[in-house]
């Protein structure tokens, strides 16, 4: 029963059970306020199961069902003599999934705990926990699935939960709009992912969606389909772009902040948005075969990183700053993924996944702190309305500071190490023959972004917690233990997880480097683990520079920020208005789409009655001969006689 393979099944099954229990609790009036209990319990148990599973990942991966030789448990399958389209219910935990699992279940559990306090008394309390549990189930399914279709099921499941949770306050129009936007924009990428998976399936001989099966045929596929294969990779990548909020599909993520803050922390910072990173890491064996695609990935990642960072510079909404920073950090991860190939894949991918891992911690703690602030400020999150809260919310302040420092990449904190690995990959990729210059350029972009990151993070920090005390009306700041404990736990994680896991022990990269997919992608190359001191010093300096500027501008009550904004009007407003991307999309995509739809409607109005033209033909003919029906008996008789005379007369007198 407690064999690893069964526990593997328990990892997604327990949260699913939790979700069902939450629904059951919700349907009983007395139990409604206890609806968090099953969610928390199941999340915790799932976490425990996940840890057990990960500890068992050694030489051999953990599978469900355990016996690989027999027929897989089929969700649905159609097979012919030579081909097979089958969605198998097969779970597999390797090192990559293991890392993901820990992040998801551990952080998820603490966020669920935090939610108990945060969501207290809100309408639809059971609904929230049911959705969160369902999310955990889907997300773990996503990372554990051993084939594309099952992964896609989890992929869509998290999308659904995101939709439900962003639209949690469904009577708020902005939340409703944000939910729809989040679902639709990611869905656009998902379609690409589905198509890409199918193309891979087709190229691999139409037999299986299994990762391993497809990866093993990757080399053959590239040779056989020199154009289709990169296209398939790009399609898969488009799925990742949608889910992980990369340019051009990132626009949903800032809007998704309409959801409850724990949701933002869990789904839109720590876990779901990293699914794209996970996917690309998983498919590293495919992507490393297409350098052009890899370069695209890197460019998109870097561009997203700097774009989002630029927008984040001036946002006044605390959660939005964090949202854009999430986008930006995800861009970093994609940049690292895009370096795999020129760099030893296991190194670059490890960089990305490591950043993913640390980012999950510090971004979660940042969001939760922001949530705590919001909770205290009577659901106000506009930084212009409050300041100087460090006295009122000491635990929150502390946690936020930890998270912000880690995010900014202060040396020795977790963000520093992971960001450093990414920069190093980019730098190293610059030495490659193809696209070398490009990667150097991207490195420059990344360094700039790092500086901006430090600046905007601490801008938010200083504006919120420093300066004179200012609070919106009706706010009565308080902190409860149920919210504080998760904050502190995650804050410790944000500080320590980096230095513990990687820089001196290389435990993380060794562990991850053994993942089959990465071994295959490495193709025999070995990653060198060393500390690049100049780079480390440089990036530390850049981070400190950013923080310093922020301190100078916002810590005191100086007018320098306002002066700067007045002097640099164009860049300031561009950033404040998010570079007008929403407006541009509206003009470039939404409006043309609506115009096409309107055109279709117009066509429809025509087509709808077009068939009546056909009906008019007999009516017209009838109008021609209707006068013959004049009601005179003799006329009818005459017509008959004339007809008879004409026919017989023709036959007898005329016809030869």
């Amino acid at each position, binding site marked *: 029963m407690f064999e690893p393979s069964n526990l593997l099944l328990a990892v997604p099954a327990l949260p699913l059970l939790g979700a069902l229990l939450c629904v059951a609790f919700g349907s009983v009036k007395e139990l409604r306020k206890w609806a968090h209990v099953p969610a928390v319990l199941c999340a915790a148990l799932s976490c425990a199961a996940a840890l057990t599973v990960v500890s068992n990942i050694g030489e051999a991966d953990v599978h469900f069902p355990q016996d690989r030789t027999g027929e897989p448990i089929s969700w649905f399958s159609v097979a012919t003599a030579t081909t097979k389209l089958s969605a198998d219910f097969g779970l597999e935990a390797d090192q990559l999934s293991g890392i993901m699992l820990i992040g998801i279940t551990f952080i998820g559990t603490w966020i669920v705990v935090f939610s108990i306090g945060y969501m207290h008394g809100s309408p639809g309390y059971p609904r929230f926990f049911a959705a969160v549990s369902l999310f955990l189930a889907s997300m773990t399914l996503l990372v554990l699935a051993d084939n594309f279709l099952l992964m896609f099921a989890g992929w869509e499941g998290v999308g659904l939960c995101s939709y439900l949770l962003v639209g949690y306050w469904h009577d708020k129009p902005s939340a409703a709009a944000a939910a729809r936007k989040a679902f639709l924009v990611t869905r656009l990428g998902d379609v690409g992912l589905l198509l890409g998976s199918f193309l891979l399936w087709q190229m691999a001989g139409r037999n299986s969606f299994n990762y391993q099966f497809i990866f093993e045929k990757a080399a053959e596929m590239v040779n056989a389909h020199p154009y289709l294969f990169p296209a398939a990779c790009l399609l898969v990548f488009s799925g990742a772009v949608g889910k992980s909020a990369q340019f051009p599909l990132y626009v949903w993520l800032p809007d998704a902040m309409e959801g409850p803050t724990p949701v933002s922390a869990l789904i839109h910072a720590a876990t779901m948005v990293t699914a794209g990173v996970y996917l690309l890491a998983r498919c590293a064996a495919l992507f490393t075969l297409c350098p052009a695609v890899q370069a695209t990935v890197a460019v998109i990642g870097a561009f997203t990183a700097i774009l989002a960072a630029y927008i984040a510079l001036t946002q006044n909404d605390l959660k939005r700053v964090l949202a854009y920073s999430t986008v930006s950090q995800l861009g970093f991860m994609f940049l690292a993924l895009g370096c795999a190939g020129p760099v030893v894949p296991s190194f670059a991918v490890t960089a990305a996944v490591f950043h993913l891992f640390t980012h999950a911690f510090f971004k979660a703690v940042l969001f939760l702190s922001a949530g705590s602030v919001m909770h205290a400020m009577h659901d106000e999150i506009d930084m212009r309305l409050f300041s100087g809260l460090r006295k009122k919310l000491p635990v929150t302040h502390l946690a936020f500071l930890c998270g912000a420092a880690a995010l900014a990449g202060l040396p020795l904190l977790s963000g520093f190490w992971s960001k450093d690995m990414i920069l190093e990959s980019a730098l190293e990729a610059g030495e490659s023959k193809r696209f070398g210059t490009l990667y150097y350029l991207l490195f420059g972009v990344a360094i700039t972004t790092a500086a901006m990151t430090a600046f905007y993070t601490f801008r938010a920090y200083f504006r919120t917690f420093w300066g004179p005390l200012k609070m919106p009306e009706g706010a009565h700041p308080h902190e409860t233990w149920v919210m504080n404990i998760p904050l502190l736990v995650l804050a410790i994680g944000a500080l320590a997880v980096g230095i513990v896991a990687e820089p001196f022990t290389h435990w993380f990269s060794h562990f991850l480097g053994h993942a089959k997919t990465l071994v295959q992608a490495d193709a025999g190359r070995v990653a060198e683990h060393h500390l690049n001191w100049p780079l480390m010093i440089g990036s530390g300096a850049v981070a400190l520079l950013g923080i310093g500027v922020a301190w100078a501008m916002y810590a005191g009550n100086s007018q320098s920020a306002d002066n700067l904004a007045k002097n640099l009007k164009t860049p300031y407003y561009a950033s404040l208005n998010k570079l007008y991307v929403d407006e541009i999309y509206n003009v470039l995509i939404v409006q043309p789409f609506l115009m096409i739809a309107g055109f279709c409607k117009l066509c429809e109005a025509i087509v709808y009655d077009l068939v009546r033209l056909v009906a008019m033909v007999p009516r017209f003919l009838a109008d021609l001969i209707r006068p013959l029906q004049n009601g005179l008996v003799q006329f009818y008789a005459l017509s008959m*006689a004339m007809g008879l*005379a004409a026919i017989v007369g023709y036959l007898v007198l005329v016809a030869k």
Partner: protein
Amino acid sequence: MRPSEAPLILLADTTDNALNWTVLTPVVAGALAIWYLLPSPQKRPLFGGAIAGVVALAGLAGFLLQGLGQTVPATVEAILFFGFAGTAVLFAALMITNPNPGRSALCFAMVVLSTCGLFLLLAAPFLMAATIIIYAGAIIVTFLFVIMLSHQNGPSNADLRSREPVLAVGTGFVLLATLLVGLQRVYDNRSVESVISESIQLAASEKVDSEYLTVRKDGDMGKPVELTPRAKSFVSRSKAALARMKLAAPEPGDKALGWDIRVRAAENAIADLERTPFKDSDMDAIRDDTMTIAASLTYLKRIREGGIPHEGVTLSPYGQVRQITKPGDNPESFAEQPPEARSTPVLLEPDPDLKMKKMPSANIAALGRVLFTDHLLAVELAGTLLLVATVGAIVIAGGRREHPR
């Protein structure tokens, strides 16, 4: 030839009996006369219609005398026929042209009476009597009553105008022309006779190759030659004549008469003639073919004229009741004999077995026997129909409302 093709062959047979003067004269003049005389708001001079009517009647007589290919000797029967027929047609024309419905009814009575005369000539005395009693006696009188009941006083729209006179008259007379031409085609045997005589003539002629075929120039001897137009016409007329003969094919049981043999022989001969080109050596074969055609057509024509010879008493088509003699051992030679030789007259001969002592009583007896044996169901149905009609008439006409206005 399949049975369904027969009428089309007949209708398409225009090699002779095309629309000719004997048909055109009565039809055109009759159409003019009727159109002239039909009631119309415009007054038309009466004499125009009268002249056209007289021409039409004369034309009709001409058609009957000349157009049907039968000579009409001046017998009493013929005089009576022309009298009755003329009266019937004349009064029919008057009936439809007279504006006064009462007079129309009287004219119709005259038509009925004339028809009865024709019935008598056709050896149907009972029908004559019945028609006079029922039609002239009962129906027309009822009509007169109705006419009086609807007290027609003065001119009315209904009587002084005609609906579509031109179209109706045209239609009617086109139909009449069709019928008359059809009659000619079916009953006029002159074309067959001409084919027979021509083929006999050809068979006897020594100049067959110069008249029947193209005249060859010197030095062309031995080369094949084509048919002359005249020869082609002969072949096609022979075909038409044969087709006409085949229309009257006897019942399958009478094949002993040699009908099929003759038909096939003629067909082969015609096919032989059509098979051009010819050589000099074919001349005798051509003569043989024409002889075969002549002999076959003669034979077929005789069978046709004599009706279908079978045993028993028959009313022969030309007014004689004759007893047909048995074909004997040699049916072919029997059929080659003229009809008179194949039967013996029995008219007015007392024959106790057949109960035909006197013509009128014999007619009624025979009619009664047929009615109550072969047509019993129909008689009953007719009786029921009469009853139902009586009830219907009472129901329709009976319920008079108090005041219609």
